[in-house]
Each structure stands twice: as structure tokens, then as C-alpha cells.
């Protein structure tokens, strides 16, 4: 039988990965009888919502429009320039992040 500490770790993991069915079964068996861990599972959902903070999206709209316009204009200006060699160190680092 899992204790609450183990269950809380598995509740966190279950948000990020598919647990093995035996592990899922043990976790469910704990959560169904443990009011605290049952609450924690729902509270983790709430935390996820707070991190995503969708309320910020509305404020982003005008800024996104302006940035899109700026980048689009820059592309238009650069369309005749084919020389891509002048990218800095950070650009090279960014390229390495292409996984």
C-alpha cells in the first residue's frame, strides 16, 4: 500500500507521463481512500491552470499584432538579401537547440 508521500510523487508524475497500469492501480487504490491525496490531485490541476495563466493572452493581442507586423516587414526588406552568414554566436547556439 502506498503512503501519501509516495502517492504525491506519483500524482505529480501522472501529469507528465503515462504510468504503468500496475502503478496506476496502486495510486488509484490510495487516492480513492485518501481525501488528502484526492484533494492534492485536483489542486495540481488548479496549479497547472495558474501556470498557464490564460488571462494574459488578451493583453498579448496588440503586442503580438505589432511584433508580427515588425517581423513581416523585416522579412520583406531582407528578401533581396541572400547573405545569411552574418549570424552571431547566440544564433549558432540557437541552431544547436534544433532537436
Amino acid at each position, binding site marked *: 500500500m502506498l503512503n501519501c508521500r509516495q502517492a504525491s510523487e506519483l500524482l505529480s508524475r501522472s501529469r507528465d507521463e503515462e504510468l504503468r497500469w500496475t502503478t496506476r492501480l496502486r495510486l488509484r487504490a490510495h487516492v480513492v481512500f485518501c481525501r488528502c491525496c484526492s484533494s492534492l490531485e485536483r489542486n495540481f490541476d488548479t496549479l497547472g491552470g495558474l501556470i498557464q495563466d490564460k488571462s494574459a493572452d488578451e493583453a498579448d493581442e496588440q503586442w503580438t499584432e505589432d511584433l508580427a507586423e515588425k517581423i513581416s516587414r523585416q*522579412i520583406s526588406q531582407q528578401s533581396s538579401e541572400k547573405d545569411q552568414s552574418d549570424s552571431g554566436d547566440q544564433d549558432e547556439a540557437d541552431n544547436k537547440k534544433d532537436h
Partner: protein
Amino acid sequence: MSETQSEPDLLEGLRAGDPEAFRKAVKTYAPRMRRTASAIAGEDAADDIVQECWISVVRNIKGFEGRSALGTWLISIVANRARSHLRKTNRQDKRRREPIREESLDDLFDQRGYWKTPVSDWGSAMPEGLLESEELRNCFRIHLERLPEQQREALVLREMNGFSYDDICEALDVSPANARVLLHRARTVLFRMVDGFRETGEC
């Protein structure tokens, strides 16, 4: 992570240097990039970081091989730049962003591994509207900023951007076991913070 249906078409347009494709890509991805930059490096720096990223993307899009989803690549770039920015500013101002006290899980559980104090379901135990209140959101942002760097990044990449363990491990250069611990610790700290706010109304 969920991406737009037309990502291959969008990518083709970006590689061809089509201004309209860039406009569409910015509209699709920039809000999430901004939130990511803000969560890692702070709100004040987020706009500049995202703008710099797009300038870099304009230059480097032809080198993007498509081994990851476009959104994952963009978020990785923004997280990388936000991290660099944060380290630079932290070096300049040591007083900024004093890290939160690393809470031991032993504080929460007794020797047998059971909760020391009962956990309330926020959905039913919180005063109405508190979860949506600006005070709580501000307090939450402050605590998110004060998490240890890797915990914060892991949580932002996972919960805000839907990164897989593999993507998190690659972005943070940690093992899957480490990623699990980072995410669990980060969630536990923020859980305690919201719980404290619920009880006292203070940040």
C-alpha cells in the same frame, strides 16, 4: 504539444522567406513564447527576449531540420535566451530574485509518509473568486520567479508548453529522474504557497 494543423505548410513558407508565413507564425507562437520568457526571466525582459528570438529565427529558419515540432524549437530558443538574460542580470544585481527556501518534503509528511496536516480541496475550500483574484495571481508569479532556476524552467516547459520528458531533459541537460524530481518539488512549493495564501490571504 498541440501545434497548428498546417505546420508543414507554415514551415515551408518560413523557409521560403514568405512575410505572410512569418506573420502567421508570430501570431501563433509569440504569446506562449512571451509567457515563457516572462516566467523565466521576468516580465520586464520578456518583450525584448521574444523579439530577439524572432530576429534569430528569421536568420536561422533554413537550418531548422524539423526533428522537433516548430513550437518546441521556438520555445527552446526563448527559454535558452531567457536563461542567459537571467544569469546576466543576476550577476549584475545579486539582490534580485532571492531564491525561495527549498522546502523539504519532510516538512509535509510524518515518518510513516502520511500528511502532517490535512490537504483541503481548493475548489470547495477557497472563498469564491479567490483563485481568479489578481492578488493570488501576482503572488503566484512572485513565487514562480523565486523557484530554483531548473525547477521553474521544468515546470514552465511542462505545464505551460506541454514539453515531454525528453524535450525537458534536452533543454535542461538533466536525466529523466532529475526532471521528475524537479517537477515534483516545484509543484510542492507552489502548492504550499497557494495553500498558505488561501489560509492567510497574504503573499
